[in-house]
């Protein structure tokens, strides 16, 4: 059995970057599954690429129209958008302050 690619330390760093918080049970399950998935993708490293193979961002070239004109189309009912906000005031979304310690994270 190979050693885990994702150690508890790497895992904790990932969780922080992902802006998540996990219970110990969740962490155990997720770290195990991540390592299993990484084992499954190891196959990629063994694939011999044919000469000159380019990366594909899409399966087929996008055949859309030329880029749209960069025109501002106001949404007809912006009140409906704001109504979805858990908290808003005077046409703005309201959130708690950044606290000092948080910014450096």
């Amino acid at each position, binding site marked *: 059995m190979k050693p885990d690619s994702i150690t508890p330390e790497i895992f904790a760093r990932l969780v922080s970057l992902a802006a*998540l918080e996990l219970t110990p049970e969740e962490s155990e399950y997720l770290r195990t599954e991540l390592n299993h998935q990484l084992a*499954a993708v190891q196959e990629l490293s063994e694939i011999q690429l044919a000469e000159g193979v380019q990366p594909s961002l899409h399966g087929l070239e996008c055949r859309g129209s030329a880029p749209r004109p960069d025109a501002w189309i106001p949404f007809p009912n912006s009140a409906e958008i704001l109504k979805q906000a858990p908290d808003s005031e005077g046409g703005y979304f309201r959130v708690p302050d950044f*606290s000092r310690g948080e910014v450096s994270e």
Partner: protein
Amino acid sequence: MNSIHLSARQIAQKVRAGELSALDVLEDHLRQIQTVDGAPGSLRHEHLNPAEENKVHAFIEVTAQRARRQAEQVQALVQRGEDPGPLAGVPVSVKDIFCVEGTTTTAASRILYNFRPPYTATTVERLEKAGALIIGKVNLDEFTYGSSSESSAFQPHPNNPWNTQRVTGGSSGGSAASVAAREVSLSLGTDTGGSIRQPAAFCGVVGLKPTYGRTSRYGLIAFGSSLDCPGPLARDAADAALMLQVLAGMDPKDSTSALAPVPDYLAALQEGVRGMRIGLSRDYDHITYPDTLTGEMSIQAIQPEMNSAVRDAAEVLARLGAEVVEDVPMPNARHGIPAYFVISRVEAASNLHRFDGVKYGYRTGTPVRGLSELYRATRAEGFGLQPKLRILMGMYVSAAQHSAQYYQKALRVRSMIRSDFEQAFDPRGAYRLDALLTPTTPTTAFLRKAVLGDSVLMQYSDQMTVAGNHAGIPAVSIPAGLDPLGLPIGVQFFGMDFREDLILRAAHAYEQATQNAEWRGITPQALRGSEVSA
């Protein structure tokens, strides 16, 4: 006559001719939902008695009032002698991953449990404009992340109408179940790695993943933006063709939407398969599956009935005049899942960053000291395990120090998967195929809870389908028999870019030729004992 037994084409034709009222069609289908569906999915997770538990549970929300208004509009047009549209009076369910103004659009996640989108997806808009009745929003895996529909935050999850102890497949499980249980004629699903075709196969219905760009993604809550494809689930190929006709075509609101002309799909069905070249590939008669501890790959047989269904279908098509081309090499098919594990997770992680409790959806109720804590607590409480897993995997494999090894490599493997199909379909090449015929899934519908939680095994359920998403090409899964347990078997046709007409033709020809097959007379368990009088 109960209209639940009519095809979408028959319903539309009768409603347009004034022989059938869209309101009666709607009531028939609402009654069927009442009979077979049971409690809709919700966040409450109540304990259900066994009879209730074994209902179909396809829906999260039934939008009877909306559908009634649409039915009245259709009737008003019919009475005025105006055209009510090609889907007049046809009841349709919509996977709850599409924004529909006036409905809650949850993506089956707590983090969107109260989201009321202020706009409607282009695909849904086109369906309504064509006279369809949007009868409700159906359940799925949370954010579409799964192949069984069990991971929904809205429980009970859908059950397979053929055997309610089995899963529907996923992630468009509610879509497939609602069509199979005759609660609707058609459903709008999405397919990122197989999410239309795999549940269609498990539930014995037709599922079509169109060419990437053929159908608009505007208003679809994104999973893997370079892979996501909205498409129809239906009870036969002609109904899928009818629905695709309405969905297909350029949408200026989706920058990847294609300009390619839209052919007449229903007319194409009549052309038959004489002279068509249908390929078979040995690379699709098994799967290559990793040991999760060592990463060691091993070849595993698939359920034998899958391969015999493909052989039988090829023989049927050969009798109709198609040329069957054996041994078409698809050497990169086996890399589909590893590449997908990387590409789809990177895209998913990127798409999931927008859910933060600020602009819409769930926000944590626990007191927080600042914005960062608000994000963390909201996402911790709002996301289920599968979205969390996808975010973490996506971030890991796209991190600067791993990107070359994983993400950049996966994008090149994607090119190789695409080149397999380009060679097979090349009109001047060795194979010159019109379609490639494969099994849709390695097995028929598995038992509930049998795979849930094993994210690797769950993902390998899509090994037969995922190459189509990497390549961007169209593919359709159609029912092709029942296994010894009475569970539906699906076979799949892959086609060339924008040639949905060809694969639908092959599907339709197979359906016509097997119309009297014994298995076609067998109905799903959920329909037995309920009102089945035709």
